[in-house]
């Protein structure tokens, strides 16, 4: 891996150069909400931000996407697949928690069954990560899940703010390609600089979660879930803003003669999420639904995919939950429970 530097004042030139070749996507503010969206030029990109409200998973697994359209002509049905992308994309400004969330989603959309829509978007998108400001926002707790907000793991290029310049870590070939679009902006570092220009270490409250899975699994029947679920309103905010939540629904919109098949986000917090045609609902109350969410994050997902926990500590759910549900507190509560075997 190669380390270079980029003057902060040159960032926009580089991004605008990229925008000439690819679709440029960055955190940009619209009606007070920061989300990752395509931009015409670097001027629309917010560089000073904690993190986006809607996680960048939406770029790979959109809130709503058309899978194909259908037309019935006589007895024939014509299907037309929707192309997920028309050109290669470059995402600027993604945080490392969100990069790591993509590696978790890769299991879901790639391990057992390959989801072509997701896969194509992943393959044709380069990630320019932006290391988090130090100190990061106070609610963040990614380090608890072993994520280093300054790491370049999983991205193609990483920029780290060290004052007037960004340190530029070029991680992959894709990343090299992007840097080579404006080679002259990226001088190497002198030995002195390499020593002096160091990111400030991140201090974050960190919880030992090595026993989390075991502890949560012992709590399946516990009364805890009832009481803790009382403030939950059953909206979908926590799941929609979560970079690792990935439930979806597939719905045909139109008539029997023509229409489109859409995939859209769904939420296990909705009362009708597990409802079956018979009328039976295996998760009839908030208690079962919220338990499901935490179980999925801390037990079901890791056991199914042999991965780590399905939470990256981005704190979005905690910040936006209208019921004041704080995942950090839930984790503490779970860890504080005596496990049954003891």
């Amino acid at each position: 891996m190669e380390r270079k530097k980029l003057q902060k004042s040159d960032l926009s030139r580089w991004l605008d150069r990229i925008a000439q070749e690819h679709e440029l996507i960055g955190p940009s503010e619209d009606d007070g909400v920061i989300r990752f969206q395509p931009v015409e030029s670097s001027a629309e990109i917010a560089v000073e931000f904690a993190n986006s409200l809607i996680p960048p998973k939406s770029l790979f697994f959109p809130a709503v996407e058309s899978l194909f359209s259908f037309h019935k002509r006589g007895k024939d049905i014509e299907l037309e697949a929707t192309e997920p992308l028309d050109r290669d994309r470059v995402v600027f400004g993604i945080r490392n928690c969100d990069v790591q969330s993509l590696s978790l989603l890769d299991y879901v959309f790639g391990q057992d069954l390959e989801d072509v829509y997701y896969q194509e978007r992943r393959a044709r998108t380069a990630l320019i990560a932006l290391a988090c400001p130090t100190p990061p926002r106070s609610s963040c707790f990614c380090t608890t899940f072993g994520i280093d907000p300054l790491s370049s793991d999983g991205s193609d290029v990483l920029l780290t703010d060290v004052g007037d310049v960004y340190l530029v870590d070029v991680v992959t070939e894709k990343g090299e390609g992007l840097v080579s679009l404006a080679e002259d902006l990226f001088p190497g570092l002198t030995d002195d600089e390499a020593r002096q220009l160091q990111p400030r270490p991140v201090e974050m409250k960190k919880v030992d979660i090595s026993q989390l899975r075991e502890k949560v699994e012992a709590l399946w029947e516990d009364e805890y879930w009832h009481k803790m679920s009382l403030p939950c309103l059953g909206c979908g905010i926590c799941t929609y803003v979560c970079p690792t939540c990935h439930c979806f629904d597939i719905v045909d919109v139109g008539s029997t003669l023509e229409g489109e098949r859409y995939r859209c986000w769904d939420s296990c917090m909705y009362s009708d999420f597990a409802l079956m045609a018979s009328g039976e609902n295996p998760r009839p109350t908030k208690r079962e639904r919220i338990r499901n969410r935490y179980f999925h994050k801390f037990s079901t997902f890791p056991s199914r995919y042999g991965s780590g926990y399905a939470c990256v500590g981005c704190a979005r759910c905690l910040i936006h939950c209208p019921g004041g549900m704080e995942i950090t507190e839930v984790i503490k509560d779970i860890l504080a429970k005596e496990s049954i075997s003891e």
Partner: protein
Amino acid sequence: MQDRLHDIVRKLLGEGTIEYFIGYGAGSEPHRVVPCFVTSDHEVERLVWGPLCLQNLSKYVLQAKDLEGKAGVLVKGCDTRAIVELLKQHQIEREEVVVIGVACQGQVDPRTLEEVLGVPMEQVQGVEDAGDQFVVTIGEDERTVAKEQVLLGKCLYCRHPSAFEYDFTLGEIVPFSIDAGESEFAMVEELERLSVEERRAFWQKQFARCIRCNACREVCYACYCKECIFDRKMPRWLDKPPLLSENEIYHLIRAVHLAGRCIDCRECERVCPMNLPLSRLYKKVQKDIAELFDYEAGIELDEVPPLVSFELDDQDPFM
């Protein structure tokens, strides 16, 4: 006031009058105040009262119907309107709930406070009420800010800051009012002055931004239907994908369902993660209901809601 709150709740729990109390509690960070369900004596200390107690807790009274006993709840003046409506709409019985009313002195809008102070909420350690201003603690510093600068939009026009339907109060009822300088419907009138195309452009942009997380519905005291029209499968009223047409249907139908019931608590707007200007829609609903039928929701217990009644001499432009 907080002490008196603790005393009352302790007594209610101790006597077994209530099974739990729904109040405000400190979140894991000082600027975050969260709904707090207290079931036992040792949790009572968690209850707080101050200018960051934003939620309308009346919504939670609905789920307390499942209890064998009663629940207690803390309400501000504006929240009382939800209690009145829930009684009027036969959703709760008055004896099922113990209401502790408080004389609210205005609540802080965190988004506005961040803007006015230029400091993110996460650095705010506390906000105290001090007459016509708030004292905000940021690190070692204390900064004062005039109330009218940072109040929630609804507080600027509040006509009922003190709870008016209650079993207990937290001390004296202290009047509170702010001269907002313009009409409470100014934000509606501003849109009404635009052309129909401009209004369409405005709302289509907003409806397109909605991700249909349903938080605005779930937080609304009036959305208690056992099966919401939007969740019905047969017949299906709404397709699930958040397409513009579906989002528009969602918001307009909800607006119609709230006609004569919206109490201007603005919880829908406050919780919307996408920052949709929902109060501009619901203020319109309130304005039309007031102008057409001279009715305001959540004030009088025995007033008949306007869309389930009529007058023979209602205006009639449809001849």
